[in-house]
């Protein structure tokens, strides 16, 4: 066919090809918010109904912090803080055997919370990337933990360290590592750490960059979207050139939740009473479809499933609720009060929700209501980190660094 790229069957074939490539590692959770960067896993080989305790596969102590867990090629990595040092840990995913650990001096950073690491590492093939709260950017050999390169990205780019540090996980796009550092991001060569482009030296926000798929990514090499402290914006991946910017003002500059993508719509939501909005992305930039105060995601972004958003509404200082909203209208479908500032993912159409006080709840993701089929107290508060599912194991961690891996098979 001459005009191949636009032809539906070929496009479908390409999709299938991509799918078959990814199914080989479909049960990995290699980066923040999972394989499709939206908190969703297709994994089916696990049990969602439990009456008694769920068996624990393994446990570890990783230090203070809220860093999430990433899993790839039989390895699980996360980070934490103890005794004036940050540590990046890499475990054997199935057993919890410590494969390697790298520590470096770091501040506790206990500003209006107990401190510790807040970002999440990123697996990319044989490599693991880590951006610390303070701007230490490292590339490890995933197998050995050998440091292949490292740089101090705040010093290197002149970008200020925002109030709660750099929190967005590194995003791999081709040969680039895109970082939420500076006013409109920074990119480095993922093989060397060399800065390829950077932005104004102003405060970054706390979200992880996500790629916008074509046609939103347009013909110029794709766009990535993320937050700074005053808005959400999209930049061209290859050059850092800004495509659009939405003014989005949240208390203390805490634009933290990742944008939630749905076709060519983008759902933004932040906490401190701010609320959410559905934006329709057009060639000239985003246009507001609706606004709501019903879903104010302070930290973890909502997860979209079959036209409904599932997320945590409220701040750590309140009794935050778990909620379901209709994406088309913004209408609230249900509220589960007292959930606290936890996080959730959706796998095989089921919510795996960790409450703020460390109770795991599993329930069908349905606008009809919240009816748990399993609930178990995994650990004590605070559990602000969403659980991670990979190969039937559910990786849970709390602020005190208790990493508890449940066997859901």
């Amino acid at each position, binding site marked *: 066919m001459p005009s191949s790229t636009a032809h539906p069957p070929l496009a479908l074939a390409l999709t299938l090809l991509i799918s078959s490539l990814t199914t080989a590692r479909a049960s990995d959770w290699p980066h923040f918010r999972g394989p499709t960067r939206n908190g969703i896993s297709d994994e089916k080989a696990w049990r969602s109904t439990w009456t008694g305790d769920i068996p624990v596969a393994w446990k570890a102590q990783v230090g203070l912090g809220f860093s999430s867990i990433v899993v790839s090629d039989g390895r699980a990595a996360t980070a934490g803080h103890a005794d004036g040092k940050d540590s990046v840990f890499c475990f054997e995913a199935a057993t919890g055997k410590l494969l390697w650990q790298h520590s470096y001096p770091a*501040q*506790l950073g*206990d*500003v*209006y919370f107990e401190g510790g690491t807040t970002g999440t590492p990123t697996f990319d093939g044989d490599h693991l990337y880590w951006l610390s709260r303070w701007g230490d950017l490292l590339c490890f050999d995933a197998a050995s933990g050998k440091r292949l390169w490292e740089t101090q990205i705040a010093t290197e780019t002149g970008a*200020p360290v925002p*109030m709660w540090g750099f929190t967005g996980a590194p995003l791999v796009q081709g040969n680039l590592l895109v970082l939420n550092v500076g006013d409109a991001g920074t990119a480095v060569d993922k093989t060397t750490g060399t800065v390829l482009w950077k932005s104004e030296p*102003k*405060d970054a926000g706390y979200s992880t960059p996500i790629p916008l798929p074509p046609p939103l990514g347009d013909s110029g090499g794709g766009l990535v979207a993320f937050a700074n*402290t*005053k808005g959400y914006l999209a930049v061209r991946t290859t050059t850092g050139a800004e495509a659009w910017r939405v003014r989005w*003002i*949240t*208390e*203390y*500059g805490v634009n933290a939740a990742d944008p939630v993508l749905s076709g060519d719509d983008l759902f933004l939501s932040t906490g401190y*009473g701010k609320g959410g909005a559905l934006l329709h992305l057009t060639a000239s930039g985003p246009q507001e479809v609706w606004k709501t105060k019903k879903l104010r995601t302070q930290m973890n972004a909502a997860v979209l499933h079959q036209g409904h958003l599932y997320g945590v509404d409220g*701040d750590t*200082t*309140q*009794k935050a609720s778990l909620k379901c909203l209709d994406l088309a209208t913004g209408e609230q479908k249900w509220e589960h009060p007292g959930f606290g500032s936890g996080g959730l993912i959706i796998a095989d159409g089921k919510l795996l929700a960790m409450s703020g006080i460390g109770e795991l709840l599993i329930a069908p993701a349905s606008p009809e209501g919240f009816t748990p089929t399993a609930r178990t107290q995994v650990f004590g508060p605070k559990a602000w980190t969403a659980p991670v599912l990979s190969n039937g194991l559910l990786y849970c961690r709390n602020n005190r660094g208790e990493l508890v891996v449940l066997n859901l098979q």
Partner: protein
Amino acid sequence: MKRRTFLRCAALAGAAPFLRAAEPRKLRTALIGSGWWGKNILKEAMASGRCSTVALADVDANVLEVAADQVNDLSGEKPKLYRDYRELLAKEKPDIVIIATPDHWHALNTIEALRAGAHVFVEKPTGHTVNESRAMLRAARESGRVVQVGLHRRIGPHHVSGMEFLKSGAVGDVGMVRLFAHSPGSGPETPTPNEPVPDGMDWDFWCGPAPLRPFSKKLHPGGWRNTLDFANGTLGDWGVHWLDQVLWWSGEQYPKTIFCSGGRPVLGPPVLNEKEQTSDAPDHQVATYQFEKFTCVWEHRRFAGNDSEKHKIGSYYYGSKGVLHIGWRDGWTFYPSTKGGKIEHQDSQLQEPDGHNIQILWADFLAAIDARKAPVASIELAHRASVLPLLGMISWRTGRSIRWDAASEQILGDPEANALLSRPYRAPWQYPAI
């Protein structure tokens, strides 16, 4: 008291149309200090339906931008934004000014706002030092304007009913009062590295009359309470509420002697150098206030938080018939002395998430403006309440007991302690005249 209660209820029920008819125009309201707490108060002003937000001031452009966005979101209004509160007052001539700056700014902000003709809602404690509070009181008297101080426990429902219970004699003869605010924590405090002043922040202006020090994220936004250049630690923050309740209950206007000790055995010595800093307020304090008819003890600690004590915050009134605890979220509870006696309890009725009663305090403020009468937490009584933690701090600093002469507002026979009723201001700011 009864008339005041009636007016308050009438205003709340919206059954006072004659008051509104007298002043159909919305009250032009401005906020100085536009952070978290200032906005909490401003939201009540907006929710009252009688105020329009004309201007906001803050020395941090980031704070100002967030506040402006929230006001616009809630009311559709676009307030004018000012870095300098003096410019705001001169240009906007607001009817009402809300002051929610750190303590070290209260006096200058309040006095300037009163001189500009505004009614003032200012946060507690009134002053950072005693003579600032006196100057505020004087300016209020001279202006004839209404000054409400943010002592919302003067009007909070469970405080009102707790006081009624106490005054009814149900607790018997009260001979001792214990006030406390305990919070969890540990030590030692790790110094936080100083940082460059953030974009848009006028740090020199923020420090204002206080000594200029390097910027730290631990101080702003909102972390200044335990740094004594800007506030008076837990005693200044929580102590003023509970000491005010003691004045309310007892009818006594002042203690005769005050002794306070405390320190930082857990948090460790304060640090302030060109590289890093810690807070410097005591991690615990015990203060004894000797009144005419009873003794009142204040205590706080910021460590050893656990469940060893039933109540963490509040006041115990020890009477011949039992013990009354008036607390925060835990309401009030009476524990009778007689075996088998009935424990009585009333829940708190607070606005969450922050657990206050600003809504009804604001309604009282508006009612006072309408009626040209004293509000429930007037500057007159709030001055007397604010002096108590400030005197406690002077005793703590000098390490000795002080005797207070309320008529002359002087510490008797102790020139060194008396000197601490004021403090030097950093130029060009001038300590207000008493």
